[in-house]
């Protein structure tokens, strides 16, 4: 199987969908000649031209809103917001217009759009370029939130999102773009709302997504060396959510650790913990543990940034705590 980078997987997914469907087009800041801030749209303008791969002005509200309007009138925009931190500026258009239109208008409109963005820390670029804001969008009924961790998932999920009739926030991670992985050359789609079990185990369940899913796997390996069999789940989509996958695992293990790169308070995993409690309280043998970022804006200094974001050893430590092994 060919091995490609995460950013190439994104690019290939968009290109394939653009070839297949003339309604698909790309717009955003520096997406054309520059090829995207993280090179995920490299080469698209050369193949599809400036009419379908459009550089916009620096106007996030207009990008999200114009995507919404275009989607309502028969197009399938794949728009880019360079950093999830700038979703603050696109917020109204995305959560008040894109998300709510269909419902408010009695089901008479559809908004088939994908807003691609990227988040996460790791590059010492501080509080305005390092956040993980997915929880805000899970809190907006009407939109999907998808956060792939591997090239295979990025491609298969993005293609599905472009074909779906709902507005989707597709959040990539800045530290994953150069990661490589196997991606089939034949066409494939990954359904929304299906988690992936990365590692099987019966002692403790570790659930995560995006870059933290890779750190959860690392933690799983470490634990295995100590004789602890962790089951590691990558959610891939926060909404729609594969709750059954998590519940099935907790049924086996009775223990649950949730890992996320977002701020601890109001984190998406708090919602997940609540759902597990609602559906499987009796299955739990220990309190659910969460491993999240500190409750402070992400600092620039490498020392502080590292302190602020969860590491594999902290995920492993949380798993041990659920097993009473300090």
């Amino acid at each position, binding site marked *: 199987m060919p091995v490609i980078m995460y950013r190439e997987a994104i690019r290939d997914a968009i290109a394939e969908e653009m070839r297949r469907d003339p309604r698909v087009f790309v717009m955003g800041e520096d997406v054309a000649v520059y090829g995207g801030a993280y090179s995920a749209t490299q080469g698209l303008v050369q193949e599809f031209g400036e009419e379908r791969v459009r550089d916009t*002005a*620096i106007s996030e509200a207009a990008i999200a809103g114009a995507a919404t309007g275009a989607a309502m009138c028969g197009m399938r925009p794949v728009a880019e917001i360079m950093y999830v931190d700038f979703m603050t*500026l696109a917020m109204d258009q995305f959560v008040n217009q894109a998300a709510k239109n269909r419902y408010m208008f009695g089901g008479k409109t559809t908004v088939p759009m994908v807003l691609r963005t990227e988040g996460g820390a790791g590059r010492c*670029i*501080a*509080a*305005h370029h390092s956040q993980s804001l997915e929880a805000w969008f899970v809190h907006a009924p009407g939109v999907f939130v998808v956060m792939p961790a591997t090239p295979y998932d990025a491609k298969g999920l993005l293609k599905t999102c472009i074909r779906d009739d709902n507005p989707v926030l597709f959040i990539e991670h800045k530290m994953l773009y150069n990661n490589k992985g196997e991606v089939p050359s034949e066409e494939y789609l990954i359904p929304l709302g299906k988690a992936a079990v990365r590692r099987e185990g019966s002692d403790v369940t570790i659930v995560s997504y995006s870059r933290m899913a890779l750190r959860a796997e690392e933690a799983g390996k470490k634990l295995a060396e100590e004789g602890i069999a962790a089951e590691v789940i990558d959610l891939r989509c926060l909404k729609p959510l594969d709750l059954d996958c998590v519940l099935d695992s907790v049924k086996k293990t009775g223990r649950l650790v949730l890992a996320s790169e977002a701020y601890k308070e109001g984190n998406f995993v708090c919602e997940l913990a609540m759902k597990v409690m609602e559906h499987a309280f009796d299955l739990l043998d220990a309190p659910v543990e969460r491993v999240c970022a500190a409750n402070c804006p992400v600092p620039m*200094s490498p020392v*502080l940034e590292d302190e602020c974001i969860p590491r594999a050893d902290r995920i492993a430590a949380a798993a041990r705590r659920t097993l009473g092994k300090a």
Partner: protein
Amino acid sequence: MGKVREVKRRRAAGPAKAAAKGEALTAEFKLGLLRRMMEIRGFEDKVFELLGRNILQGASHVYAGQEAVAVGACSAIEDRDYATSTHRGHGHCLALGADLKLMMAELCGKATGYCKGRGGSMHIADVSNRNLGATGIVGGNIPVGTGAALACRLQKKDSVVLCFFGDGAANEGNFHESLNMAGKWKLPVIYICENNLYGMSVAFSRACAVDSICGRAPGYAMPGRRVDGQRVLEVRGAVLEAAGRARRGEGPTLIEALTYRYRGHSRSDPRVYRTKEEEAYWHDRDPIKLFKADLLAEGSLTEESFAALQAEVDKAIAAAEKFAVEESPYPKPSELLDDVYCGWVETEKGLVRTGNS
């Protein structure tokens, strides 16, 4: 007296009482402007070198090429005034009087930096020198600068606010909303758009529906004026005039300074969207070169005194590097949660009150 203080605080320029037109500036004052531009250039070249050697991490939006805008504009405001800055803000910071050492330490993420290493390149504030801070959000400082001017008005101060932003930022909603508010309320703010012809890879002419930013000024009931951003005294003159208007209660001004950034948008930018010829044209119009030539022509500078000045600047930059890279410690991980709130601190069970500051 003003002059003594000016030298002490190592400002590019202190109180500027002279009129914009035909003001008589001392040779010493002009050499101060030249020196500050040279310090910014030297600082940015050093930053680029340290990034290349991986000694410095993080963002890398350097200001080289635009020095005359920051130095000219900041030389025209007074101690009681304010400024707000951008992601390309090192030049603004230094022109407002920041210390090279503390700047470099901040960029290196060190505890001795202006913001204890938490802000880094894109987020420096230096409030004692009037700098209310830079931002990583393009256009994010425009409403804030407008609000600072509102405070000056409400407190009946005759202070003004210098609000820097780029040509790209002028297409954000924040720009339009702020200028409308300031225009209606006649706030004492000077909007200074550094039109360096690009917002990242996208040329100004490809992003903006009209061919000048200052041409939008009438839509917000304020005067607009375009200046040569490579000419430090021309920028200074325009800002002096705008500051005068603002202090007299006549409201805001929009100044568009035409300039050019020499480096890529950031370190990883190969600059495929512009030509070598265009770059060469602007290097010919280098702000330091132009001002140096003026000063040589009028006799306030000789090649020898210029070389001596350059040597002093190089020494100051080397000292800043040494201070930041070798002598300064990183912050302690235990300080991660300090300063998130005023008077409250984060604990295992949430926030608890600690006092009033």
